[in-house]
């Protein structure tokens, strides 16, 4: 893993010459404005040629449109008379009023201001007070796929939108799994959330009362990757189950006591989906070798959609493969993870504020960042293919 210098200049860093100390006295990395964009960008750009979750399936209806900004693009989401989801740019061709505040009329959406109507392809289908329709009148329409209980949209080149490249989140609607989730509106760049999920060492410090334990930072992990995916695996053998997992073991094995083998296998799929295979099994019963029958297994389903450069939609769910019929356990797990992720949300917001408050400071990396750094490298390549820099911040604004 190599770190190159960030491409963007800042007010406090000299482009070349002697290293300067910023006000806080910390040694700042010298910044070379001519260097290529690097994986260490602090405000990471997002690829546009990608499927992003725009909403839970139940949020998109044929009753009233949903307004949501996806990858910097304001979108109006609704369903036509056949129930198919539609994603149109949320701005009328005429005077740019938001269509999301308009009405759904069967297979058309009507602008709330002057009543122009658009069909699902974004073509204007009705104009007030004239007998014809201006042939130029249309709004961009985005490819949409409904899959895994989510509505996915593609804001990039529509000719590249292949539904087969929607990231795999099959546990979300498989009969072998049960569970539910929520959405966090996170006040941070999407890449900070990916960093958070690609290295779970932070659980020991951020989530000490639920899933954290000191064995996390003591155990080794393994990182593998291909062009679009990164996997980080960590096993902890013969340890005490932390409170969250002890409760789950006792749901499946009433009265369980004793040591467990614990696993966390983090599966990233570009650009923003991370499904984490987590669980514990009775120690020494063969879970590392593949027999998980004496344990409990969950999948933490995460998919992060950049909203703006500094805000994100963080869709998550916790799916389990035991006690499938228990709505009580579904609710308990959802509430439990809600509490855990609330701790992350606070940390991410604070981190983003600190990043913005310290524009002259660079990121440094630890060995534990390997997973997150491979993610950055994959995203960086996607951005390069689109001819866009990895840093979203303009020069001088503390990339």
């Amino acid at each position, binding site marked *: 893993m190599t770190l190159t210098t960030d491409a963007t200049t800042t007010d406090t860093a000299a482009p070349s010459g002697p290293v300067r100390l910023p006000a806080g006295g910390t040694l700042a990395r010298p910044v070379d404005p001519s260097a290529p964009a690097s994986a260490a960008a602090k405000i990471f750009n997002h690829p546009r040629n990608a499927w992003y979750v725009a909403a839970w399936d139940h949020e998109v209806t044929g009753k009233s449109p949903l307004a949501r900004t996806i990858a910097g693009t304001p979108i109006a989401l609704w369903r036509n008379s056949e129930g198919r989801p539609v994603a149109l*740019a949320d*701005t*009328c*061709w*005429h005077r*740019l009023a938001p269509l999301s505040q308009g009405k759904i009329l069967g297979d058309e959406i009507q602008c709330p201001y002057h009543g122009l109507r658009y*069909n699902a*392809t*974004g*073509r*204007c*289908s009705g104009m007030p007070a*004239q*007998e*014809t*329709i*201006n*042939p*130029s009148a*249309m*709004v*961009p*329409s985005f*490819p949409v796929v409904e899959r895994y209980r989510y509505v996915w949209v593609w804001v990039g*080149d*529509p*000719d590249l*939108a292949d539904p087969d490249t929607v990231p795999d989140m099959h546990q979300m609607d498989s009969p072998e799994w049960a569970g539910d989730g929520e959405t966090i509106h996170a006040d941070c760049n999407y890449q900070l959330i990916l960093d958070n999920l690609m290295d779970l060492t932070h659980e020991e410090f951020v989530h000490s009362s639920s899933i954290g334990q000191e064995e996390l930072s003591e155990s080794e992990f393994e990182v593998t990757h291909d062009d679009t995916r990164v996997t980080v695996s960590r096993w902890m053998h013969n340890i005490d189950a932390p409170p969250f997992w002890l409760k789950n073991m006792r749901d499946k094995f009433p009265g369980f006591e004793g040591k467990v083998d614990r696993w966390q296998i983090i599966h990233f799929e570009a650009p923003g989906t991370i499904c984490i295979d987590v669980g514990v099994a009775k120690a020494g019963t063969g879970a590392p070798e593949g027999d998980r029958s004496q344990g409990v297994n969950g999948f933490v389903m995460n998919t992060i959609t950049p909203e703006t450069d500094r805000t994100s939609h963080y869709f998550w769910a916790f799916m389990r493969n035991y006690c499938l019929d228990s709505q009580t356990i579904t609710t308990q797990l959802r509430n439990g993870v809600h509490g855990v992720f609330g701790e992350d949300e606070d940390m991410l917001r604070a981190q983003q504020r600190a990043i913005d408050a310290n524009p002259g400071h660079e990121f440094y990396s630890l060995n534990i960042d390997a997973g997150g750094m491979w993610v950055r490298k994959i995203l960086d390549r996607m951005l390069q293919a689109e*001819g866009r820099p990895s840093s979203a911040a303009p020069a001088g604004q503390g990339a």
Partner: protein
Amino acid sequence: MAALTQTRWQRGRVAEVEEVAEGVRRIVLEPEHPVPAAPGTHVDVDLGTEHRTRTRSYSVVRSEDGGARLTLSVQLARQSRGGSRHMHTLRAGDEIAMTEPVQSFPLSVGASRYVLVAGGIGVTALVAMASALRRRGADYQVVLVGRSRRVMAYAEDLVAEHGDRVRLHVDDEGTPLDVAALVAEVAEHAGARHTELYMCGPIGLMDAIRGAWTGHLLPEPNLRFETFGSSGTFAAEEFVVRIPQFGREIAVGPETTMLDALEDAGLDVMSDCRKGECGLCLVKVLDVDGQVDHRDVFLSRDQKERSAHLCLCVSRAVAGADANAKARTRSNGNAPAAVTVLLP
């Protein structure tokens, strides 16, 4: 599309010029600030003439190297308003003022079937669309209409690329397009309600298709077209605009428009798109000595027949052609047509 129609002007260099069919010149431009041109986009070119409407729009036939090379193709119009004649004087190495690619004719995603109809040089708007549809694996058909193969640019290329998805209708080979049959075929197809027809060509052809389209009650939004207001039923000729409220009579030469002529004469006229789409320059017609050649797409067919209004930016008047014109009784055969209008 609203989000993509901001016009940014820049310099462009002419990289190549080549005759691709009789009277049709392929011009490859290298813009200063390349951006990829999606199918359906056009660039506006500043002709640098003294007329107010100095710009002309030309479809991007091909975008290469992320838009670093943009191919246009220009047919020398028999009755050019000056645009095509100017474009035909360009030579490799010349510099021009041009816009970034502007999108007002986007190819949609997800229609069950696409029919592209090109009349003459209108093919330039559809070449890139056809390629995109082929790459997508879409169900599509390309219908090419022309007077003669000699003047039909890109016909051979399209046949080579799309094989039997291309249908050729050539007047001088006795295979003209039967518009009624074409639209009936669309209407009878199983996916008719989700079939989109994209057309670009002479206004007569497009009016005929539109008439048949509405006749079959096909959804109007599925009929997509682009016109730069450059095509009329009749060739452009000089005529006179009379504006009694100001006691003015203004001559409109074949190379200019009524809107330009009125503005040049110091009249305060409202307009926006200047290509016959928005209807802002609509005025009342009080009298016609000759016939109005409505070149806009704002007025409906009925409204054009009533001719109570016209769009100043593209429409014209012609003296000949109409056997019923009361004009003939009032003026000698060689006098220019005249249209009397009331300005708002």
